Each structure stands twice: as structure tokens, then as C-alpha cells.
């Protein structure tokens, strides 16, 4: 981990200007594959299985991006990153896009040299405790030890929450989520805190998932989304519209199954989206059927959500805020036109 940071710092120091002046789109096309920084240890968002096959919400986003740019969702090289190494890896060009359940905040957007593409999951921070503690609310945690992963907004929210409620907390910080959960499981801490989605995912990986509960309080806003490097607007646009395409596909009722029929649709919205009308793909610097490639590869946003974290996944997280804007949630995308 230290090595990665040191190497990345070196890369920033020594990378010649000319080499990085090349656009990301061209670099990805020349390379023939997309480098995607992902989690690697978080079920539902980014996790390789025993065969090395990656699955998750963030993973599907990268596959969608590869489908849009290269026409093949499998041309992605996933790079597992810890929370503290992730920004350096993106800054130094080790990955083309960072899709690693990353919270969009003002300081990250402005001072880290990143641009957040949008929000692919509206989350909030919560706590997990042992049932045996008989704690029903996070407000009862005064004086508790809390295990937390380093280099996250979680670490700061935790301090803020206890400070705001005049409570004491003993923070035990670990470099990776794995180590933090292990220490919590070994009894080092009373509670483990991270984004609620992460809590559900980690809970399933504990030896006795039933002995742990997630407390009802959500103590922060955690809009999670992919990010790209600052300064390459074309790539930024492509990354943005890949996410919007996923959301628009759901709104248009387009799924992985019916995408071919939709090509014959007379609906002008659909025609623009699939590229049978206008040249919206070319405007992005992509093929005409870029959006079709995305939906063929991973389906629409609803399908991606359900498959990885929602109803048909082991996590069974309620869509809540992550429903479309016209279904009671806040997920909304600008139109293709």
C-alpha cells in the first residue's frame, strides 16, 4: 500500500508532460482496455469471485463504460484499491476511472484533481453492533469503541456525530475495511461504522450474521459515484453520459432483454437514445449505438441495482432514495437530445 502511494507520488513527480497530454479516450482505445479502480473487498459494489470474475454496482458501471467506448464490456482491467490509495491511483493515471463507492464531497471535487461524474448510489453512514450489547440507537453509544476504515469520509463523520451529541468515542482506525471488520469481529470494538450499504454487505460476511444488527440512524449524506481526472472534459462527458444512459434506459423502459426490439421503436426519445435518429454518439466521440452497447452489456440502472445490491441479490437492500425520480426516489438523468 505504501509502495503504491510512493510510486504514485513518483509518477506525479516524474511523468513528462507530453505523455499525459494525450486524451484518456485515445489512451483507452489504443490500449484496447479500460483500467477501472474498484473496491475489491465490498460485496455488492466491487468484489472478485474465486474465478477472478468481478461483480458489483461499481463493476457494472465500468463494464458499461467499456461497452460504450470499446464496444465490449469485458475489456476492463479492474484494479482493487483501498480507500486511502484510491485518489492517488486516479491522479497518477494508474486507472482511467475510479468507481469505488466513493462519496462526492466539495473538497474531493476541488482539491484532489478529480471530477465526480454523478451519483450511482445515494447512501448514508450507519453503525453495526452486536445484538448482545442491547443497543437500539446510535445515541446510546456514548463511550463506545468504534472500528473504522482509514481515509474515508466515514472517519470524519464519526468524530462529527459524537461531537455533535456530546458523546465520547474511542476510534480504532484500520487501513482497510477487511482489517476493521476483522477487529470488530474479534471484539476489539463495540461498533463498526461505514456506509449503510457497506454495513449490510459486511454483515453477511461475518461468521454469525444474525448476532449483529445495523442501527437505524443514518448520520450523514453519502452520495456515491464514479470519478475521473480533472482536465479531460471529453472523458468526463463520456463517463457522465454512461451513467445517465443507465438511468435513462430504465426511465425509457429499456432492458437487457428488450433492447433489440427497442431499436425498431417509433418513440423519438428512444430513437435518439439508441442512435437511430441524430448523431448523439458521435458528439460524445463514440459510436452511434453507444447506449445500446451499454444496455446490452449490463442492462438499465434498475437491473444493475437489483442484480448487485437490491431485491435479487443476497444484500436485499431497499431501493429507497435510489428509485427513479418518477417512482418516489431521487435518481434523475438529463435527456439525450
Amino acid at each position: 500500500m505504501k509502495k503504491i502511494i510512493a510510486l504514485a507520488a513518483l509518477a506525479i513527480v516524474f511523468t513528462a508532460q507530453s505523455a499525459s497530454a494525450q486524451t484518456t479516450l485515445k489512451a483507452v482505445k489504443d490500449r484496447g482496455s479500460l483500467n477501472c479502480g474498484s473496491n475489491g473487498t465490498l460485496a455488492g459494489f466491487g468484489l472478485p469471485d474465486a474465478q477472478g470474475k468481478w461483480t458489483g454496482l461499481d463493476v457494472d458501471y465500468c463494464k458499461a463504460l467499456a461497452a460504450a467506448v470499446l464496444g465490449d464490456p469485458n475489456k476492463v482491467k479492474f484494479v482493487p484499491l483501498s480507500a486511502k490509495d484510491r485518489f492517488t491511483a486516479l491522479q497518477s493515471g494508474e486507472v482511467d476511472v475510479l468507481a469505488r463507492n466513493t462519496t462526492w464531497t466539495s473538497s474531493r471535487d476541488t482539491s484532489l484533481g478529480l471530477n465526480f461524474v454523478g451519483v450511482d448510489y445515494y447512501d448514508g453512514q450507519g453503525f453495526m453492533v452486536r445484538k448482545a450489547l442491547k443497543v437500539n440507537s446510535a445515541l446510546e453509544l456514548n463511550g463506545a469503541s468504534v472500528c473504522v476504515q482509514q481515509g474515508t469520509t466515514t472517519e470524519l463523520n464519526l468524530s462529527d456525530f459524537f461531537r455533535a451529541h456530546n458523546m465520547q468515542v474511542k476510534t480504532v482506525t484500520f487501513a482497510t475495511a477487511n482489517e476493521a471488520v476483522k477487529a470488530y469481529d474479534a471484539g476489539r470494538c463495540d461498533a463498526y461504522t461505514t456506509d449503510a450499504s457497506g454495513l449490510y454487505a459486511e454483515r453477511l460476511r461475518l461468521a454469525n450474521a444474525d448476532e449483529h444488527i445495523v442501527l437505524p440512524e443514518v448520520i450523514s449524506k453519502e452520495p456515491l459515484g464514479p470519478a475521473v481526472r480533472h482536465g479531460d472534459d471529453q472523458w468526463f462527458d463520456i463517463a457522465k453520459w454512461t451513467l445517465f444512459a443507465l438511468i435513462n434506459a430504465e426511465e425509457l423502459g429499456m432492458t437487457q432483454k428488450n433492447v433489440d426490439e427497442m431499436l425498431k421503436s417509433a418513440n423519438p426519445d428512444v430513437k435518439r437514445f439508441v442512435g437511430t435518429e441524430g448523431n448523439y454518439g458521435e458528439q460524445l466521440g463514440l459510436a452511434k449505438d453507444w447506449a445500446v452497447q451499454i444496455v446490452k452489456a449490463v442492462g438499465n440502472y434498475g437491473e444493475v441495482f437489483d442484480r448487485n445490491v437490491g431485491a435479487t441479490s443476497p444484500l436485499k437492500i431497499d431501493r429507497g432514495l435510489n428509485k427513479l425520480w418518477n417512482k418516489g426516489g431521487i435518481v434523475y438523468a438529463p435527456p439525450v437530445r
Partner: protein
Amino acid sequence: MSTDLPAGLPPVRVAFYNDPKVRSIAYQVALCVAVGFLIYEAASNAITNLERAHIASGFGFWHNTAGFDISQTLIEYSAQASTYGRAFWVGLLNTLLVAGLGVVFATILGFIIGIARLSKNWLVSKAATGYVETIRNIPLLLQLLFWYNAVLKTLPEMRDSYKIPGGIVLNNRGLFLPNPILGPGFYWVVIAFVAGIAASIVFYIWARKRQEQTGQQAPVFTTAFGLIIGLSILVLIAAGFPLSFGFPQAGRFNISGGMEVLPEFAALLFGLSIYTAAFIAEVVRAGILAVSRGQTEAAYSLGMRPQPTLRLIVVPQAMRVIIPPLTSQYLNLTKNSSLAVAIGYPDLVQVFTGTVLNQTGQAVEVVAITMAVYLTISLATSLLMNIYNSRIALVER
């Protein structure tokens, strides 16, 4: 150069570029220019790259509020009031604490094992060999994880804490000791303690002189013990016992009050000391074997027993061989303490190149500062050891 030439001939004129003196200066200047150019290029390149990528740079973050908690702080620190700069000092002190104690424990353990390996007792020497060969051949990171889990898994939960008489509590949250609370008259005790040390030094010098002149030995250790500890206790009683203890209290989740030794700290200290002791043991063994056998035999023939022989004849001579490699073991231990990051001990790397780097995103500055700090610590250690080394080095006449 000109010695082979017959006398009387004028000295051979050498072109200035063939003059070894001019050449060596030219090479050095060229090297300095090259290194300087490389540093300049790297720095200016970094600045343009950072600017182009819109990554914040500079050291302004040093004074920004940190906003995160740290589990072990030797100086006052709070998430809301302290800065990243303060967090740096907290991390640095934590590194120095574990490295300092680690050096002490590793040295003691290493000397014992190194000497044990040379013991005539078969069991003792084989046990020491086993220790060295096992410990130094397993990666340190694995050992740290082992110790951390060994500490966490074997200790009881809060509710079933071990209670040791004297107000000590032990559980998987740490070891809790009563902390001394000093009363107003306590400075008298401190004065007595310092006076005791001074008196002991004077006594030691006197006793040594007397032994050199008359051969009579004086009980230095007992006297010093009495002067330092006994005097302090007497003054403590005379001043009306201005000392009380804060005892650890069990709360709902945790123990509060008293002094706290975190399991992460204990595991790291254990791991580092035990690992480095294996290397120090080998250094000590090599040093002792380097002292010629005749020295020991000469001491025995003068009627000295094995223990004083070792202490007065062999070890002082062995130290000359031991010190240089021992220094590098100390440096290794200090640098290895950065593996703390794996087990959640808040050392410099964990706090500063971990959380601070990530919250500020200023990798170049943070990594540069951290490298400078480790370099400074290492150079300071080397310097001290070199001074000691030159003091004990063989004085050649």
C-alpha cells in the same frame, strides 16, 4: 611519477585535462550539476503536473483542522480543535514511543539470547538457536498479525475482564493501569530523586578510584538503589504523601480513567522486539566469537569466574564488533514500526501518510515530509551510535 626519469631532465609537462586533480574536481562538479538538474527538473515537473491536474499543493494544509480521532495520543489532541500539523506530531511521538521501547526490549532480549546460544548447556543453546532460526525466517508482517490476533483472541471481553490486584484491569480493549496523580508537594520527591542519582554517580566514581588504588570493592548497586529509591520514598513520606492514583472505572462500553495500553501498541511492541531480538542475538554471538579465546583463558588463569569474565573481559571487547551492525538493527526496527498500519496502531505512517494524505490529497508533500522524518530519525540514531562507537573503539597508539 617522475621517479623513473633520469635526474637532470626537465619535469614532463602534463596537459591540464590529464591532471588527476583537475579531473577529479571536474567529475565532481559534473555530478553535482547533474544531480541538481535532476532535482530541479523533478520539482518543476511536479509543480506543473499538479497545477495542470488541479491538485492542491503547498503546505497550507498543515494548519487546517484535522477532524478525525486518533486512538493513542501522547500530547493533547482533539478532532475538532487540532490541526493536521498536530496530528503529525501525535503520529511521530507514537512512532518514537514504540521504536524507543522496542530498541530497549530488543537489545535486552537479543543479548540474553545471543549469549544463551553460546551456552555450554545443550538445552539452552539449542533453544536459543531454535528461537533465532524461527523468528528471523518468518516475515515481520505475519508475526505482527499473529501477535495482534493472539492478543485479541485470548483476552476476555469487557464484561469478563481480568482484574489484577492494585486496580489493574486487562481485557481485549487493552491493559488499564492506575495513573499517578501528583499532589502539590511532589516536586520535593523529584528533587530527592535527582539528588539521589547525583549522589550515586559521585559514589560510583569514588568506589572506582578506591578499587583502582586498593583493590577493595564497594557495593555500588545496593548503595545507588538506596540513594535513589530509598531517599525518594523517605521524602515522599516526609512531604505527607502528595501522590494519589486514578483507578480505571468500568463504564457501559469501555473502561475510563487510569492509563491505557492499547492492544495494537502491545502487539506492535511485542512483534518488533521479538523479531529484532533474533537479529541482535546473532550480532551479539558474532561479536563474542570475535574475541579471541585466549582472552577468556587468560581471565580464567587469573582466577576470574565465568560471569565476571564475560562482563568485564569479553563483552567490552565484543562491543567493538557489535555496535556497527547493532546500529543497523536499531534503524531497521524504527523503519519496521511503520508496519503498524496493518494492525491499526496510529504511528506516523498510519496517521500522516494514511488519513492526512487521504483527507488532503497532497501525496507529494505528505510523502516528502514522512521520508524526511524517517531520514532524520535514522541519521540521529546513526550519529549517536557512531559517537558511542568511537568512544569504545580500540585506541591505537
